[in-house]
């Protein structure tokens, strides 16, 4: 077996298994905890509150637009750029078709791939700068925050190299970094990609039944 075969074969499937099983295990572990029992008479629907909260916390509140502008802009640049090139980059679609779903969809042009990657890099760099310089973030950040950020940066960087398709080793490097990211994901704060639905939902439900749009 070639190195690329190993990386895109057994190692890929191992990483993907850790990613899926680990994430499900973590969520299942939390769902297995006792539920909070609410006996007070509700004023409004908890479900509607949960849905509203999931949507509402995606955008800044008018009262906080000025204070949070930097983080919100940087966060959106990074996440929108990331999801755009992750889901619509030609090499990613080809990989998803071949290894995961068995079907693909129309990719974005190469120039758009590069632009979205640059947007994501810009967002990540701004988030990193803020984490380095803002006294609040310096106080509350830990090794997990830094590891998640650098690992993501590494995946994106090796992806840029691999995009050149000049050398197989660059693709191997990218796949290895992706696999490291997948293995790290369930044990880290990267899980916020899934957990936000639950935290927003539970808060929204708790306040929704009180008739509050939080």
């Amino acid at each position, binding site marked *: 077996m070639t190195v690329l075969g190993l990386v895109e074969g057994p190692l890929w499937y191992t990483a993907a298994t850790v990613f899926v099983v680990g994430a499900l295990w973590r969520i299942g572990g939390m769902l297995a905890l006792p539920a909070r029992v609410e*006996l*007070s008479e509700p004023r409004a629907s908890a479900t509607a509150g949960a849905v509203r909260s999931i949507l509402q916390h995606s955008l800044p509140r008018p009262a906080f637009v000025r204070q949070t502008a930097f983080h919100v802009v940087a966060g959106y640049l990074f996440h929108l750029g990331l999801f755009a090139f992750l889901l619509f980059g030609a090499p990613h679609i080809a990989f998803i078709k071949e290894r995961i779903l068995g079907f693909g969809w129309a990719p974005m042009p190469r120039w758009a791939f590069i632009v979205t990657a640059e947007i994501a890099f810009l967002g990540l760099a701004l988030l990193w700068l803020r984490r380095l310089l803002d006294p609040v973030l310096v106080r509350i950040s830990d090794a997990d925050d830094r590891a998640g950020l650098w690992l993501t940066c590494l995946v994106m960087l090796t992806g840029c190299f691999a995009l050149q398709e000049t050398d197989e080793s660059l693709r191997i490097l990218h796949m290895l970094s992706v696999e490291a990211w997948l293995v790290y994901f*369930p044990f880290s704060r990267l899980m916020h990609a899934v957990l936000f639905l639950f935290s927003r939902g539970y808060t929204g439900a708790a306040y929704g039944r009180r008739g509050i749009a939080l």
Partner: protein
Amino acid sequence: MSAVPDSARAVLKAAEAPDSRKAVAGFLAQVTRDAAFQLEACVHCGQCADACHFYLVTRDPRYTPIHKLRPMVKAYQRERAPFSALKKRLGLAPPEVTAEELTEWSELLYDSCNLCGRCTLVCPMGIDIAGMVRRAREGMVAGGFAPADLYQAAQRALDTGSPIGVGWPALRRQIELQEQETGLKVPVDVEGADYLVVLSSMEIIGFAEIIGALARIFHHAGVSWTLPSSGFEATNIGVQMGSRDVAAALLERIVAAAERLKVKYVISPECGHAYSALRWEGPNLLGRPYPFKVVQIVELLDQLAKEGRLRTRGKDTRRLTFHDPCQIVRRGGLPQAPRRLMNQVSGGFVEMPDRGVANFCCGGGGGVSAIHRAEKLRFSAFECKKRQVEATGAEALVTTCANCRNVLEEAIEQDGMSLPVLGLTELVAQYLEPDPVQVLPATNA
């Protein structure tokens, strides 16, 4: 005074011998499913700091709301979180929570958090940080790390029925004075009344006019009501300090009074945390639904107005603004009712910037006003509220929480400002349409 359960007494003894293991056990006991997701979801973006008045006035990163939860997060990640056993084995779990750490965090979890919930508005993960601080306080109390002032207030509440020691004789005296003032009888212990009025100690001692105001409004609207001679105090120090046992013991007295007098409704007074305790936490704390409904006084006045039973004449012509008590508006779900009442009795009602759910706390909620060592920080935090009020150019500030009112009055005085703080119920009572003059039938001479 009803007997105090041993569990409530035991809570107070924890202060005599602080123990971090008990605190950790207390933290973990609070980790239900929803709490676990709240504790796991933070991405450490720090935006919550921008919503907290304690951080905004001091710029001290320690006051970042999510940072206040650190001991509880550590305890959870070490002992209860998925993969905690694996991480412990690999030496990757957080270290044990220490007594020194909890002593340091006592200031962060109590002095610098009003449980106001403003931070939740800004959190991109939607974490209910105030709700989690409320739960973390359960661990702090169990371990003996809550401020001494709160243990003492809880002791007084359990012994006398009031956190500041206001008993029935004091209330009876205030009732008598209000009866003289209004010429109306204040019903006490009337079995079968529709509504039971409970009060906060701050109202009884500081703003007793509320009793007369209620008497006038209910007489005007034809509401059947009563005050109880026991179980009349609604401030719940147990909810504020973080003790389910103390909170339940205090709530049980109100429920006993309501059941004894067979009322249909209990009116939560002008006190934010009383509403939170009585309306939302109460049934959960007691483990059973109430046999009556709880209605906040502003909610009831708004309902009476809608039904045409609260008729007013004239309006206050001053420029008035409204301070939203956090537990009644942001965390209580009643942002519009006080505004409708304000518009009914005020000709110059002006809103603050960031009104309603985004309003700043008075600085004294969540038990902070009862913590002596927190006084300086509390007065500093008033700066945010002051800026809001000054932006309106208001000549008087109206609110619907006696604790807010007291805290605001103290801060205003401390700041050298001159601004009256009014209670909304009293303001409404002041503009009630006079009763029709009784015309006696003409008699032939």
